């Protein structure tokens, strides 16, 4: 893979962003995000707490309707940036690449979006270029292009759609599944547990998928589709490592069902999902085997307006069954070449309860847990188990479109604290060198702007 000099890349993106920002300042009546301009509604109409990505019921309708709802002509471009300072309870040893052992101030990411609809049937949301300030690299990011039509199904008004996307669950309209689930912003600076399921972003950006969906009577959601691996050259082109995790054997089917209704004066949703994949690790087909994963999950959410405030709860459970036969046969895992060296199961829970006050202040508590089968080949401690809780307080001063820089400039300032009860299998000495789970407890202060 070749590299463009970092200074050149950064100057290109920062130049574009600053140019846009300067013009916003001179045109306070108009700003982005592009969807706010398109729909004539402020951020709070589509996003809980007045800032993305948590969607209100109308935000879900807008997404499932293919981003086509239009009140005004719009410029289908937006940009955002997230910067943060992170302090871990103990210094990291070794320090993260390019960074200090602790107290790191970084640009987590800066992104340029193309987002909008064309006519009544085509629309899209494309996080076209993201600069990762920790990994110091450019790549494409979440892409979701849609074609939709309104129709009658079972006698009820419904939407039929197709989504072409590059990350399983990025197309989902609820905020329970990984792509848009809490935490809505995080950093690569502080350590996170090693064990994670395939659906947790492991193939985000390295696959392309097409699925069809039906949104029946604005209550029942049914989706089915499949993902495949683009060529090595294409992934190089968009800044994604083609060998991580590897190439799919055939296609990876994905399915999703959900029901949305009323409960207790709010909107609830219950759903299920499944993703199945066979991967040649590192695109190496020489073993004749693949690494196989089957993920299935259930989720639920509830969102209730309380005066000018709102209460939301999101919960998901995901089970993964895997057999890394190819990685074992290739000697990537384990000390022998036993194809059964890495059979495993994982069970992951994640919940988030959020109270948003006047679309300005948000308070979130989010417990998480991942547990699974013992395997000495996969985990240093033999166990994947980790758990903890994250708390977040955030302030969104201009979520109702009242920014002094115009109604489409928005910002969120927040503080997160992540507390680990168990990390990579143990509470104490999880790495055999005396590190405790609590050493990775992290305080993060972030600023997130979008326009």
């Amino acid at each position: 893979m070749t590299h463009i000099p970092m200074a050149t890349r950064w100057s290109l993106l920062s130049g574009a962003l600053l140019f846009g920002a300067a013009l916003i300042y001179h045109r306070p009546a108009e700003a982005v995000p592009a969807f706010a301009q398109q729909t004539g509604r402020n951020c709070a109409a589509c996003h809980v707490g007045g800032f993305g990505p948590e969607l209100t019921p109308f935000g879900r309708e807008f997404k499932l309707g293919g981003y086509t709802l239009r009140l005004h002509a719009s410029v289908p471009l937006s940009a955002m940036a997230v910067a943060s300072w992170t302090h871990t309870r103990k210094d990291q040893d070794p320090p993260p690449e390019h960074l200090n052992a602790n107290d790191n101030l970084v640009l987590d990411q800066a992104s340029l979006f193309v987002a909008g609809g064309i006519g009544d049937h085509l629309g899209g949301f494309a996080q076209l270029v993201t600069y990762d300030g920790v990994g110091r690299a450019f790549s494409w990011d979440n892409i979701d292009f849609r074609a939709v039509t309104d129709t009658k199904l079972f006698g009820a008004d419904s939407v039929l759609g197709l989504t072409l996307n590059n990350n399983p669950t990025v197309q989902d309209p609820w905020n329970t599944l990984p792509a848009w689930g809490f935490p809505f912003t995080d950093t690569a600076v502080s350590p996170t547990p090693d064990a994670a399921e395939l659906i947790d972003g492991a193939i985000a950006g390295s696959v392309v998928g097409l699925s069809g969906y039906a949104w029946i009577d604005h209550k029942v959601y049914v989706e089915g589709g499949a993902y495949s691996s683009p060529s090595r050259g294409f992934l190089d082109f968009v800044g994604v490592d083609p060998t991580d995790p590897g190439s799919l054997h055939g296609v990876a089917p994905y399915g999703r069902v959900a029901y949305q209704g009323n409960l207790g004066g709010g909107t609830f949703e219950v759903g299920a999902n499944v993703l199945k994949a066979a991967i040649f690790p590192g695109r190496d087909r020489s073993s004749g085997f693949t690494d196989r994963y089957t993920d299935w999950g259930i989720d639920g959410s509830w969102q209730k307006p309380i005066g000018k405030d709102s209460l939301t709860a999101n919960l998901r459970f995901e089970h993964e069954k895997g057999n890394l036969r190819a990685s074992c046969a290739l000697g990537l895992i384990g000390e022998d070449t036993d194809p059964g060296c890495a059979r495993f199961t994982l069970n992951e829970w994640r919940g988030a309860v959020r109270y948003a006050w006047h679309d300005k202040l948000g308070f979130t508590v989010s417990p998480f847990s991942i547990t699974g089968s013992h395997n000495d080949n996969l985990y240093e401690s033999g166990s994947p188990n980790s758990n903890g809780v994250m708390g977040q307080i955030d302030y969104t001063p201009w979520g109702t479109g009242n920014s002094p820089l115009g109604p489409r400039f928005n910002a969120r300032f927040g503080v997160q604290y992540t507390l680990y009860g168990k990390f990579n299998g143990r509470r104490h000495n999880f790495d055999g060198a005396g590190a405790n789970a609590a050493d990775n407890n992290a305080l993060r202060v972030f600023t997130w702007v979008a326009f």
Partner: protein
Amino acid sequence: MSERREQVSRRDFLNIAAVGGGALFAAGFVSAAPAPAKKLSQKQAKYQPIPKSGQRCQSCALWQAPTACQVVDGQVSPAGWCILYQAKG
């Protein structure tokens, strides 16, 4: 040789995305006129004159008694519903 071609095309991608995108972004702001206050049509809002799942216009935060909506054009029934429904807290 192929390595060279890849380097140029990738650079092109990033240049077009960043600089071209930024220029379009800026041009949009320069050309954007102040948006007139207008409403969505009932078709756009997928309005129906009957409730859905117990949700009705009369209990919506956007409701304007006796028969109007802040964001949807035309006469609106208190018993109606549309995709912009937003429950009063």
